[in-house]
């Protein structure tokens, strides 16, 4: 998985951090102080599709076969998250109760071509 740089426009992960103070949410979210909402951006040429997000497997073999046969449906490939992490949040609800929860799949860890 690539982190975005100015030298390439290939599919990569762009880091973005939302500070809860900047959006005025630090009064009800106790922890964390911000949200690392990364996202995926960039091009997925056909030869990149299926890797690195897709592990070498039966699926890769099928996908390569489809590409080799130049089926129209395989023409589209997207830059998508391939691994995500959970986010633990400690916050006040509307009744001033403190709630702690782990939200799955919130932080994009790596990107790849679908």
């Amino acid at each position, binding site marked *: 998985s690539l982190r975005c740089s100015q030298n390439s426009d290939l599919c990569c992960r762009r880091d973005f951090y939302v500070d809860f103070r900047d959006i005025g949410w630090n009064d*009800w979210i*106790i922890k964390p102080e911000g949200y690392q909402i990364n996202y995926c951006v960039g091009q997925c040429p056909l030869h990149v599709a299926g890797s690195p997000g897709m592990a070498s497997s039966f699926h890769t073999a099928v996908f390569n076969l489809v590409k080799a046969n130049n089926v129209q449906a395989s023409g589209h490939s997207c830059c998508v998250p391939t691994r995500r992490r959970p986010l633990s949040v400690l916050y006040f609800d509307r009744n*001033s109760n403190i709630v702690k*929860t782990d939200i799955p799949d919130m932080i994009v860890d790596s990107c790849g071509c679908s």
Partner: protein
Amino acid sequence: AAAAEPRCPSCPAGPERWLLEEVAKKQLLEKLRLRDRPRLAHAVPRAAVTRALRRLQAGGARRSPAGTGGEEEEEEEEQSYEIISFAETDLTSPSSLGLQFQFSQAQDQDLRILQAQLWLYLRVPRSGLTLRIFLASKTGAGAGGNRTLLGERRLSTAGSGWSSVPLLPGLQGFFSGHSRTLRLELDGSDVTAQLNASRSHQPFLVAKVKVREPGHRVAKR
């Protein structure tokens, strides 16, 4: 001039930044099942929050890992919450104290309570103290009325400190229903005189809750 420049050359600025912040807000609210950000009607004192969090952390460290095998796999599909709710107190009778909790329970949620404990700051006399916690009826019958015993605990060590009373399984029924106000009654020998319910020692309830989404269950079947 430095303030006018963006923080870094590759960082998004202007409309793109605004858009990403909106996406982040929407995603957080959706995952927390909130329609809008909570507006806090009354702030909980900082000292009470700190004490409650310390209690929760200590409790979490002592807890053993959840079940094994299939049960664990099933629980991975559920989102869990730990809730600390602070009580509003009122005197029900000379020997009984009312504790009221408010919950924002979203509709159509299948909640399962894994743990629930009531924490109280008490001064235990030398003769000891027996605490009984009741779930009050909806009509608020008061002491001696229609109510359910949730937990009982005998405290024999004299002195002041935090004590906890487990409230399961009796409390499960409340969370399965649609009521959002939980009313408990506290009985004991002169319990009102022994309980410290000052702002920094506000009684609180800690609950560990799992939410099962209906969609998941259908898919599983």
